[in-house]
């Protein structure tokens, strides 16, 4: 990915030299033109085209923001409810992710999910122990972690 960005920048600088205009707007035009050229030749790279990875990162950030807001609404409900009738507990969650940074991002996302908080990551990086505010919602939480977060993180790293 970094090689592709560097190549894109080199193409933009080449465009600046061809035009003989040294300013920011020429660089941006050259960058966009270089992007088009690289899109045409995308099959020659070993990696996939880097713009799709950038889009995946932006989607992950949007998921972060959405989860933060919905988790706040659920905390608000629990705190302001007149009776404390939730059933907290710790459950184990097996993750498919392997790299360290992926697990870090996943546990950050889980912490910002409604009603869940990571307590411990097991030594072999395969099981996350999650404290849930209401253990009755556990199945739903596991489902959303599996289908939304893990998929979005894999989309970035694949």
């Amino acid at each position, binding site marked *: 990915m970094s090689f592709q960005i560097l190549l894109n920048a080199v193409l933009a600088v080449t465009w600046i030299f061809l035009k003989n205009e040294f300013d920011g707007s020429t660089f941006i035009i050259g960058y966009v033109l270089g992007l088009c050229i690289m899109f045409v030749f995308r099959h020659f790279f070993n990696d996939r085209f880097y713009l799709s990875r950038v889009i995946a990162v932006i989607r992950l950030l949007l998921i*972060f923001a959405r989860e*933060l*807001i919905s*988790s*706040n609404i659920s*905390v*608000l409900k*629990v*705190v*302001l409810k007149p009776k*404390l009738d*939730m*059933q*907290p*507990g*710790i*459950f*184990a969650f097996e993750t498919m992710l392997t790299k360290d940074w992926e697990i870090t991002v996943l*546990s*950050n996302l889980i*912490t*910002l999910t409604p*009603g869940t*908080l*990571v*307590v*411990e990551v*097991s030594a072999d990086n395969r099981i996350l*122990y999650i*404290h849930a*505010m209401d*253990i009755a919602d556990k199945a739903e939480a596991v489902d959303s972690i599996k289908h939304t977060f893990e998929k979005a993180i894999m989309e970035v790293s694949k």
Partner: protein
Amino acid sequence: MIAIVEILSALFLLMGVFLFLVSAFGIIRLPDVYTRNHAVSKSSTLGILFILIGTLLFFFHQHGHFDFRIVLAIIFIFMTSPVAGHLINRSAYHSGVKMWDQSVQDDLKKRR
């Protein structure tokens, strides 16, 4: 147009303050460390984000001054506060803090 920006920034500030209030109530009301941590690590994160966004809008509109340090602060808080919540939870568990007596499940205990 001017009124819209002012109302928007005031709205952001009020929402932030409200979330702080809720997280403070959460600390008082909830029964144990872990559930209190839920309230603190979520509500106060979003609360401070809202307050910073409101400040950013206000100064951008009143003085035409876009302060990138506020944007940086938003990013830093967003990255660090879930980690802080996790670490407090983890160290509480390892130093043997009991969970609330109405807790139903503890998978972590089975492991040891």
